[in-house]
């Protein structure tokens, strides 16, 4: 009887322990990898959203200003340059409105008010380029190119409605 009980209470062999620990190690390693990957994806996605949001906001702000502008103040603008600036004479409200890029940030200055940054702190604007097309007796046409974080860009064109 004691022999039967002894047989029932037989312990874990060394080999089994080694196998168990190996499996656990593999699972833990995989779990860590997945976790790191998920954190990485979250970061990339957040950054992408941040950049796209900044680009969208910047382009929308510039577009709205151009649509309501009276004319382009060419003497205060820097055209056809990657570090460009656009100054717009407005028919109402604060005038002029000036968009420029400084230290990786797109700045807007309305009238004599202090300049305000349009992009988030996590976004660096490397290119803000304005090109103007003029034709006699026709409203000016502006092409805008914005590049953020050296990789993401936005391109749009707007005609002055005045």
């Amino acid at each position, binding site marked *: 009887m004691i022999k039967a009980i002894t047989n029932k209470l037989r312990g874990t062999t060394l080999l089994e322990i080694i196998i168990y620990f190996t499996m656990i190690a593999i699972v833990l390693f995989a*779990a860590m990898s997945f976790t790191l990957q*998920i954190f990485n994806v979250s970061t990339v996605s957040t950054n*992408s959203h941040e950049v796209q949001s900044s680009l969208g906001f910047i382009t929308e702000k510039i577009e709205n200003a151009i649509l309501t502008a009276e004319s382009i103040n060419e003497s205060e603008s820097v055209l056809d340059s990657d570090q460009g600036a656009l100054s717009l004479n407005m028919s109402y409200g604060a005038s002029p409105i000036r968009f420029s890029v400084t230290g990786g940030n797109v700045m807007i200055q309305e009238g004599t008010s202090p300049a305000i940054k349009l992009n988030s702190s996590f976004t660096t604007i490397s290119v803000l380029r304005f090109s103007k*097309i003029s*034709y006699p007796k026709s409203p000016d046409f502006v092409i805008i190119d914005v590049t953020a974080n050296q990789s993401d860009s936005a391109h*749009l064109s707007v005609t002055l409605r005045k």
Partner: protein
Amino acid sequence: MSLVEIILAIAIFSVVSIAVFNLSIDTIQRDSKIELSNQALRYAQEGLEAVRNMRDRDFLALTNGDHGLNLANGSWTFIAAPEDVDGFYSRTITVEDVYRDGNGDIASSGTFDPDTKFITSEIGWTLRGIIPRSVSLSTYISNWTGDDWITTTCTEFDQGIYENIESIGVPAPPTDNCAVSLVDISGSGTFFASSNVGSHGTDVVVDGNYAYLAVDSSANGFAIIDISNPALPSIVSQLYTWHKGRGLTKNGNFAYMGIERTNPAIAIIDVSNPNATSVTHAWQLDGYGNEPAASGNYLYATANSSKNGLSVYDISGVPFATDFLSVGADVQSIELNGGYAYLGTDDDSSGLKVVNISDPGNISTVGSLDVGEEVNAIEITGITAYVGTEESNNSLQVVNISNPANPTITTSLDISGEIQDMVIQGNYLYAAVDNQNAGLAIVDISSPFGPTLVNNIDIQGKGTGIDADANYVYISTDTSNQGLVIVGTVQEAVATSGSYISKIFDTGSPDTRYNFIEWDHTEVPGSTLKFQIRTSSTAEGIGSATWVGFDGTNSTYYENARTAITTDPLASGNRYFQFQAFIESDGVSTPQVNSVRINYTP
């Protein structure tokens, strides 16, 4: 813990981990898709903005179809579609026509709007190189830029210079609406011939090579004259009809004549052989027979009788009466139209009567009209009845019979005498007039503003009856030895060429840009219409400026309405503008220029 349990646990963990991992990968991919779509929308919007820019420069550059865009030398132009954008996207701009309904709202069909286009800007790309994706934006583009200088009223046209061109009023809108065309040089000519039938003529009907004459002769009240050679009319037969012939009509192989007696007062004459005519039937009326009318199987006989001024007979066989009607006055003339008989009577206060004859067995008066005097003749075209009266002045009354029960006078015309008979040929009404020195009157009835007297012609006697074919007018007269007179009809003609120079238009700006010239005109075969323009910096200098066409040179013309304007590059300036219209015709009919529009941006 057994091995099986461990394996099971690992498997569950793996499934969950893979699901979470896929979710994170999908998040990355979605972000990428959104980024691509956002940029595609910006390119699509750029397409619409480019089209707006093209519109601002030249609306006519927006040609229908699918296009790509090209930016070169500071301007956008259309190229073949699709356009490659950034080496990843393709862009197609579609331009379509726009139509409007009766309320002026945009509709799928209706009136074409030449100043509005529907624009679609579509951006396409492929996801992972195989899955096609696209976004599109649409809008309406209208040609609102620029000002218009429009010449369309008589006042505006009269400020220019006419050469073999005349202005004519046309129906509004706008008020004083006008058109210009080559001058009308129509004329009635000088042709004149006559035939002696031994007495006065009282009425005439022409059919083919013969003129059938009612003669004021007790011996031979009816005569047939060969008019195959109008210069030499000759009598082929004369017929005894108991008394003088009064009124006459013809239908098929028979002539129907009113006779100046009561029995018989009406006769049916077989004229199948003009050389041998005979009376087939003749019978009594309640008074002297006047002008009859025949249609189908029925004869409508009129008489100098207040009792039965109008009688209807079935003439399909032996004539028999179907109905009689008293209108309370002598019936002197009759004209059938649309189920009604329009009677001219000697009732001074109600000279025109309208009778419903849709049922020949039950005719009845439905309307009447006071035209101021007795009515001797009626001619109908469309909804207009020309009523000839015994009024010395304004003997021609124009009556609207759109409602036969309620005819109304629209206008009247003085043609220098009482009207005895009338006939309409083409755009002219010819009237036999009781005027010794002007027995024939010619009236132009082509204008929507009312008839105008063209000419009074001396036919050496008073006119008593009249008929016409395409080339000649045949008038029975009260001249004994010229019972039938033949003159030429009006031969319509216009000048073969002419030009119109507009006034000098001041745009008010020294650097005006001219966008396009457009005109509205009525085309006629065998004619041409073309334009040239000139500009100058001063009004005084424009007279020496060069007329130029679509390429800015004197050797071309604007020949298609709505063409982009190219000014003379050597012109002194663009502030002042003139256009010149050149019209050519085949000498018969002329095109009409209804309006000219110059679109410019000062």
